[in-house]
C-alpha cells in the first residue's frame, strides 16, 4: 500500500511540505494549552509561524560557520528521517539518521565559545542518551511483531500494535517530554518564556539560523505524531488521536512539574522507562515463542 510509486511522490511531498505546517499548528495549540493551564488567554494559533517569519526577516549575528552548517544538517536529517518513516522504509535507518542530526546539532553547540551553548550541548548528549534506548526498544518491539524493520509491514498487520504493546504509550510520552525538551527535562534549551542557561544550545543562534531550529521543531512534532500513529496503523485516525493524547499528556506534565537535573532525567529514563519497555518486550517475545 505504501510503496507504489505514485503514492510515494505524494507521501514525500506531504512529509516535506505538509508535515511542518501540521507540526507548527500543533506547536501553536501547545502554546495556547499551556497558557490556558496557567490561567492566561495565550497567543494566536499561528504564533509559531509568525515567530519563524520574524526570525527570517532579522539580520543574523552568526556565531561560527560550523554551527550554521550543523544547523542545516540537523534540518536535512530531520526531514530525511520523516520521509523514511512516512514512505515505509527501514525503522533502524530512520533512528540512525535522527541520531546523526542530533549529533550535528550537538557539534554545532560545541563549536561556539559561549559556555551556555557548551553546557547546553553536553546536556543535549545526555538527553539523546536518555531517549535513544526507548526509541530502539520501540523499533525492536515492532520487529518482534512484524518480523521486519520495514515500516510498511506495520500496515499489513491485522491487529493494531497497541493491543500487544500498551506500555509503549508510556514510553512515547517519556520520549516526547525529553525529545521536545519540555519540563521537567528542558535541560539543553527551553521553550516559551522559560529560561535555562540563557537559551542553552541555541544561545549563539539568531535570525534565520534560529528559524531553522524552529522549523526542525515543527518536523520533530510531526515525526513524533507519526511514530505514535504506528501504534494504531489499522485506523490512522485513532492513531492520530493516540498521538494527540500523548502530546496532551506531555503539555500537562510540562505545566505541572519543575525542572529537574540531568541525573534525575537519566535515572528516570533508564530506571522507569527502560524496565517498562523491556517488560513489554519480554511479554511480546514470550507469546511469539508460544505461537511457534
Amino acid at each position: 500500500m505504501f510503496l507504489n510509486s505514485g503514492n510515494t511522490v505524494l507521501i514525500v511531498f506531504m512529509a516535506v511540505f505538509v508535515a511542518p505546517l501540521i507540526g507548527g499548528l500543533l506547536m501553536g495549540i501547545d502554546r495556547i494549552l499551556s497558557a490556558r493551564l496557567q490561567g492566561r488567554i495565550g497567543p494566536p494559533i499561528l504564533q509559531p509561524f509568525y515567530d519563524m517569519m520574524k526570525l527570517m526577516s532579522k539580520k543574523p549575528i552568526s556565531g561560527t560557520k560550523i554551527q550554521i552548517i550543523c544547523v542545516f544538517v540537523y534540518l536535512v536529517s530531520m526531514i530525511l528521517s520523516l520521509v523514511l518513516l512516512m514512505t515505509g522504509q527501514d525503522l533502524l535507518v530512520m533512528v540512525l539518521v535522527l541520531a546523526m542530526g542530533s549529533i550535528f546539532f550537538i557539534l554545532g553547540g560545541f563549536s561556539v565559545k559561549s559556555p551556555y551553548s557548551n553546557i547546553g550541548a553536553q546536556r543535549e548528549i545526555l538527553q539523546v542518551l536518555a531517549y535513544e534506548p526507548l526509541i530502539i526498544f520501540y523499533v525492536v518491539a515492532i520487529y518482534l511483531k512484524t518480523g521486519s524493520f520495514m515500516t510498511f509491514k506495520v500496515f499489513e498487520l491485522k491487529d493494531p500494535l497497541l493491543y500487544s504493546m500498551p506500555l509503549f504509550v508510556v514510553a512515547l510520552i517519556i520520549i516526547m517530554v525529553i525529545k521536545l525538551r519540555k519540563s521537567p527535562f528542558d535541560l539543553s534549551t527551553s521553550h516559551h518564556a522559560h529560561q535555562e542557561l540563557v537559551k542553552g544550545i541555541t544561545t549563539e543562534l539568531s535570525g534565520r539560523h534560529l528559524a531553522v531550529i524552529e522549523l526542525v521543531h515543527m518536523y520533530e512534532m510531526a515525526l513524533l505524531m507519526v511514530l505514535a500513529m504506528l501504534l494504531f496503523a489499522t485506523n490512522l485516525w485513532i492513531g492520530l488521536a493516540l498521538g494527540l493524547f500523548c502530546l496532551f499528556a506531555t503539555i500537562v506534565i510540562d505545566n505541572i512539574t519543575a525542572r529537574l537535573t540531568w541525573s534525575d532525567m537519566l535515572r528516570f529514563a533508564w530506571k522507569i522507562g527502560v524496565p517498562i519497555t523491556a517488560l513489554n518486550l519480554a511479554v511480546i517475545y514470550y507469546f511469539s515463542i508460544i505461537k511457534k
Partner: protein
Amino acid sequence: MSSFDTSNIKSPWILHYDTGSCNGCDIEVLACLTPLYDVERFGILNVGNPRHADILVITGAANKRSARVLRNLYEQMPDPKMVVAVGICAVSGGVLHNCYNVLGGVDKVIPVDVYVPGCAARPEAIIDGIVLALQKIPEKRKLLKSREAKTA
C-alpha cells in the same frame, strides 16, 4: 505592509535589563506577564538572550558601571531592534539625575525609540509603550534597508 512586517509586529521578543533601578519598574514589567495582563496574547515573550531579542526594555538610570553592559547588550541584538526606556529614571535619570555616578537617562548611552515615564510605570503604560515601539518597526526596517543600500 509585507508579511515580514506583520510577523515582526506579531512576535516581539523582549529582553529586560535593569541598569540600576529600585526594582519598582522591574516588578511592573514582570506584572505584564501575569494572567491579568498576559502579554503573550500579542506574541510577546520575555527572553534572556540578546541574540534572540527584538525589543530591549530598560529600567533604571544609566550609570558608569552599567553603561558598558548596556552598550554590549544593545550591540548583541540583531537588527531591526527597538529600545524602550521604562520609568522616569530610564527616561531622564529621575530623582537620581544629579548623583555622582549617574550619567542620566538611558539615551545618553544608546538610542532610545520609546519613552515610558512613571514612577513606577504602570503595566498598562508599559504595554502601550511596547505597542508604540512595534508600530515603528516597519519604519525602522525601511531605514535599515536604505542605509544598507547606501553603504553597498
